[in-house]
């Protein structure tokens, strides 16, 4: 089998420097927004005492979930010993680290007291799944870092599968933990479901792979490297399976809720837009289901579209946007729905908006902070492929899979 | 060309030399004590040198005891430090170099965030609280005289 060489990119072109400049501008905007929010206090944002986690958290959770799933390609190569994916693995590992850094940056910068990050890393309440998440994120850096080292270092290559296995188990625990942040909350109707943890795992597979495919296609295209149809077809089918799996989990989640009479108000809120939930209902049906699941499935599995890169790109973009919509519906819709404190009673008056659907309108600093996280992840990718040998020189059909059947 | 180089060397030496002298004179000279208002009491709860070396440890220790165990003894309480060291209703606030805490903290460039939450001057007590505490004190005193028939023993409230 022809050895596939991983080579750094030149990284001198105007296009590359322009990309760095653009991402740098977004990062500066995000830092400025974070300073503005922290200096004035959160009253300048759209978040309030009713919607405590807003758009920054939508982005942050999306990036963190995608980070875990982006390692999938590497895991398939090491844990499930699929040689086909081995040259794709280092890029996958770096992408997962980059996305996690971006997500965590947004999360930390939105804290009320980001200057207390050291406190967050040294005072632990081990009953809190949030505290466990902090340990899991740090561990993820460690495990994936070691895994990446073993992948790239000739002398350590033999141990890659052990590191890969450890990283695989760790990220399953990590994503379970991220889902459990919501699943363990007893107070809110939309959250208290054990399903949220495995749903987050399957979401991570879908979002992570979509981002990976886009990064792979873009980096190969912009460095004039050959990316053969065989790779495209394989990754395409894999993405299709994950998108379908996410849709399955969403269906089961809502079906379960529909069987519980005491959850009917929440289901009507999300599915039908009652009680002021129109925006969430729209985001759910149009954003999450149609654009985020059904259209991508059609684009991926349409007969004859197997090699078409345009449909695959479109599908990936839609999966990402649908994923953001899904996070928005879950995180913000789940908070907007009023707490059910007085069953059988109607709240006539309250100065603290009891019984009322909470209002939320994202403000510019929040949007810029969220986008900054994405920019950080992408700039880490852009710099990594220059500094490290991550991209295979070529992934044309004969190189990627010498045994493929040409059709 | 050689003259220019020599001139450059001389200038650099002059700059470095004067910098060295300035810095050493600053470190060798006495650090002037900040100009702050006179504290209320006779003396502090511990000798000045001990306080300078470890007041933060005392405050840190006390805050956890107060917060988690409800121990509200006066000696290491931040509120009591402020009560003594900062005049009531002063216009000098934390951040001015004349405020008791920020005077040294600015000079030593040690950031503290206590006063993001804590009052930096004493005396801001709402009327409702003053009235309630006065009534409580009267009641507790009355209760003491009623039970023991002797002078009321000190309780946490009246101290």
């Amino acid at each position, binding site marked *: 089998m022809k050895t596939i060489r991983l080579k750094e990119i030149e990284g001198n072109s105007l296009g590359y420097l322009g990309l760095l400049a653009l991402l740098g501008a977004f990062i500066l905007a995000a830092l400025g927004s974070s300073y503005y929010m922290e200096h004035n206090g959160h*009253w300048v944002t759209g978040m309030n005492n009713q919607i405590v986690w807003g758009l920054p958290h939508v982005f942050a959770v999306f990036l963190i979930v995608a980070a875990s799933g982006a390692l999938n390609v590497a895991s398939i190569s090491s844990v499930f010993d699929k040689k086909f994916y081995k040259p794709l693995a280092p890029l996958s590992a770096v992408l997962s680290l980059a996305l996690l850094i971006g997500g965590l940056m947004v999360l930390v910068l939105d*804290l009320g007291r980001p200057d*207390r990050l050291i406190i967050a890393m040294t005072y632990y309440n081990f009953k809190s799944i949030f505290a466990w998440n902090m340990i899991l994120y740090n561990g993820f850096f460690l495990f994936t870092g070691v895994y990446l080292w073993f992948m790239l270092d000739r002398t350590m290559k033999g141990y890659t599968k052990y590191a890969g296995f450890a990283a695989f188990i760790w990220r399953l625990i990590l994503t379970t933990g991220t889902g459990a942040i919501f699943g363990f909350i007893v*107070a809110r109707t939309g959250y208290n479901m054990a399903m949220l943890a495995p749903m987050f795992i399957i979401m991570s597979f879908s979002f992570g792979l979509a981002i990976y495919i886009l990064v792979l296609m873009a980096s190969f295209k912009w460095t004039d490297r050959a990316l053969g149809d065989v790779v495209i077809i394989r990754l395409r089918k894999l993405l299709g399976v994950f998108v379908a799996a996410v849709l399955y989990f969403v269906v089961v989640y809502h079906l379960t809720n529909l069987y519980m009479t005491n959850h009917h108000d929440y289901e009507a809120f999300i599915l039908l837009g009652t009680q002021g939930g129109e925006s969430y209902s729209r985001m759910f049906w149009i954003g999450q289901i149609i654009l985020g699941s059904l259209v991508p499935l059609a684009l991926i599995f349409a007969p004859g579209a197997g090699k078409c890169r345009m449909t695959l790109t479109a599908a990936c973009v839609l999966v990402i946007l649908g994923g953001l919509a899904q996070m928005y519906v879950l995180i913000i819709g789940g908070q907007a729905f009023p707490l059910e404190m007085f069953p059988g009673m*109607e709240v006539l008056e309250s100065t603290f908006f009891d019984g009322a659907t909470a209002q939320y309108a994202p403000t510019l600093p929040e949007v810029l902070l969220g986008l900054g996280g994405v920019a950080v992840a992408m700039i880490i990718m852009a710099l990594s492929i220059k500094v490290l040998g991550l991209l295979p020189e070529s992934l044309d059909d004969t190189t990627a899979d010498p045994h493929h059947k040409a059709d | 060309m050689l003259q220019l180089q020599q001139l450059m060397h001389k200038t650099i030496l002059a700059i470095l030399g004067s910098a060295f002298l300035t810095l050493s004179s600053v470190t060798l000279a006495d650090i002037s004590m900040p100009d702050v208002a006179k504290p209320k009491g006779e003396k502090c709860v511990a000798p000045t040198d001990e306080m300078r070396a470890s007041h933060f440890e005392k405050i840190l220790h006390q805050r956890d005891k107060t917060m988690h165990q409800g121990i509200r003894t006066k000696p290491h309480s931040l509120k009591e430090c402020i009560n003594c060291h900062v005049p009531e209703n002063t216009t000098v606030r934390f951040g001015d170099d004349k405020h008791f805490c920020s005077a040294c903290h600015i000079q030593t460039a040690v950031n503290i965030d206590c006063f993001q*939450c804590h*009052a930096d001057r004493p005396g801001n007590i*709402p009327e*409702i609280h003053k009235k309630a505490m006065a009534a409580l004190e009267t009641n507790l005193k009355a209760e003491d005289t009623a039970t023991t028939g002797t002078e009321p023993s000190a309780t946490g409230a009246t101290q």
Partner: protein
Amino acid sequence: MKEMTVNFSRRHFFEKSATAVAGLSIAPGVFLSQVAQAKPADQAVTIEKRWGMLIDAAKCATGCNDCVTACHEENGVTSHGRPETDAQWIRKVKLRDKATNHVISLPMMCQHCETAPCVYVCPTGASFKRADGIVLVDKHICIGCRYCMMACPYKARSFVHETVTDQVEYSPRGKGTVESCTLCVHRVDEGGTPACVEACNKAEHGAMIFGDLKDPNSAISIELEKHGGKQIRADLKLNTGVRYQGI
């Protein structure tokens, strides 16, 4: 510092007068505002006491806001004219029973649960329950993540959305941290009662009783035994320290 000695005769006097106090349940002001023994300042709180409140929604006057005004004045909680982000440690809620059209009002604040979700979820342990049952935020280690606000079934917590200056000296509060009703812990530790309860008694509504739930002779325990008391969202089994009648 003077030695604190426990005076046994004083304790016995208090036990006898507690029964008398219970009988004076309509009398306003002074007697009801002093149901607690002052704890010596150097003594740690213990699990021997559990502070709680009993609120009778039937006695709560619909248009009255005295408890809210008192609490916010006592603790220096200022309004900025932005109801969505302004902190509220206690609020009045007016409710209508959909089946019977009966209208009631009640004050809503931190319920000081025994198994408080906010305490479970806090990553740093800043949200904690004191031995005597009062749930507090240790703002020294609060990082402002707002997870406790997500987890609270009663929406009891507020996030401080702006810079705070001129704090009340016994009620530190600052930007970027989370806060909620402290059961006026600064008053309780000195033998007093929460400002809201005191204000309600002053207005002669007497809808709120404060006391030690573990003391069978306290006014609150006697009233609970006589007329019962419900928890809001009792199905969550949080064993709240604040109970309600008439809901």
